[in-house]
């Protein structure tokens, strides 16, 4: 491994004054990770509550895409690594204070669990499927009998995964826009909202969509509150934090942030969902896709804007 030698802490290419190391891979991964966390949380939550039959798409259908989302997200992370072949070294240590370590281990646990969860429903959704080997058939039988046992760790791990997608950014203490602990809950809620949107897209049951729509409205309200809280916190902070907030409150990210994330990604879908609950006919694909796009753009903006905020002037 070649190390570069810096004689000064200033004017380092791609690090100072602006960070320029994270590109589309990171927001892409954060989006997929949050979405997977959201779906897994709802799937395990409704299983624990004993509502598998009432929430078919939530518990059975939507989790089918989770392993693909996670693997694709991990592939994005892998693409982002400078020294790709050393990725395994993350698994040689456990560091409580390192978000990378948290992420690596949570993904190590949740990815196979999500695969087992999805696999256990494959035969129900595709009746012609045959697991061929006896050991697989036996494992499937055991998993089906012990789903609650699987749901609990999945529920807990999905919350950790959702929060971790925000912590990955907030652990950067040199970037004021990211260095706030509200990012964890904010990304968790946003991820759950995108997960709910995917479930609404996949569900054909009107009652289930209504339940997810209600949950989604609540999540959107909480998310809006967190966003307000995020900026309140910055504006009450030091000069650098005020500068970071100003990128979104008059600076170059204002229009895309408020138009695509706050209005078209949160408020407008919430209004459409309220109309649907009131009995009006709304094609569910519109609010759902807008929520997904809003979530994706939100992560792109946060990663992009965070890299140009700084402490040293």
């Amino acid at each position, binding site marked *: 491994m070649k190390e570069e030698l810096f004689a000064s802490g200033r004017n380092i290419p791609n690090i100072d004054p602006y960070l320029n190391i994270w590109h589309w891979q990171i927001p892409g991964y954060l989006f997929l990770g949050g979405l997977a966390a959201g779906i897994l949380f709802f799937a395990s939550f409704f299983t624990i509550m004993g509502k598998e039959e009432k929430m078919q798409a939530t518990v059975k259908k939507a989790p089918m895409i989770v392993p693909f989302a996670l693997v694709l997200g991990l592939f994005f992370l892998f693409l982002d690594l400078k020294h790709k072949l050393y990725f395994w070294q993350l698994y040689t240590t456990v560091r409580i204070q390192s978000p990378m370590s948290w992420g690596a281990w949570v993904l190590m646990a949740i990815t196979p669990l999500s695969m087992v969860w999805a696999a256990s429903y494959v035969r129900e959704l595709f009746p012609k499927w045959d697991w061929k080997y006896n050991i697989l058939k036996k494992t499937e039988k055991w998993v089906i009998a012990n789903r609650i046992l699987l749901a609990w760790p999945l529920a807990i791990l999905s919350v950790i995964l959702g929060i971790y997608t925000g912590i990955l950014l907030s652990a950067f203490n040199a970037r004021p826009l990211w260095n706030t602990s509200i990012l964890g809950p904010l990304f968790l809620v946003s991820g759950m909202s995108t997960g709910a949107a995917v479930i609404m897209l996949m569900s054909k049951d009107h009652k289930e969509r209504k339940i997810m729509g209600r949950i989604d409205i609540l999540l959107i309200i909480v998310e809006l509150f967190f966003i307000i809280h995020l900026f309140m916190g910055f504006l009450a902070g030091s000069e650098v934090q005020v500068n970071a907030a100003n990128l979104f409150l008059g600076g170059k990210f204002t*229009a*895309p942030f408020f*138009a695509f994330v706050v*209005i*078209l990604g949160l408020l*407008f879908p919430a*209004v*459409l969902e309220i*109309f649907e609950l009131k009995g*009006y*006919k*709304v*094609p569910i694909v*519109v609010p759902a896709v807008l929520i997904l796009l809003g979530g994706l753009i939100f992560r792109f903006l946060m990663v992009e804007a965070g890299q140009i905020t700084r402490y040293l002037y």
Partner: protein
Amino acid sequence: MKKIKNDGSLYLNPYLGGVILGTVLLLSFYISGRGLGASGAVKNTVAATVNAVAPQHVEKSAYYCQFAGGDKEPMSNWLVYEVLGVLAGAFISGIIFNRLKLKVEHSPKITSRRRLIFALLGGVLFGFGTQLARGCTSGAALSGMAVLSFGGYITMIAIFGTAFIAAWVLRKNWI
């Protein structure tokens, strides 16, 4: 809102609609410092697309140069965002009045295909005209007349005068 007859045939009173549109225009001047517009958003989107596909062409073209290329950001424009808002608002209106479905409205005497071709032709002509007139019904006529611009009145007369003649010539498509 009372749901008396919500089968998709209910429309807003046009006079009330006009007053609301005027209020929107006033608010637009107050909030954004600019009027309303539609063709400008299309123009900027086209300029941004051309700039993404063939930046050399933009640099050479005197027309595109005004909106794209260099440091210019054609998509970060009030009109682009305004049109997104128009789409969102129209969608909500469609939900409230129960008109949210895909359909081609045309006279029973002509086919959907004919209607779409004529709509496209009309759109192309109108788009070309807006660039000669520096604005469309909303950008030049409505916003222009609101600030008592002489050009606004001329545009209004030209658009509606021509439309009157064209409507007579093409009346067989409707009646």
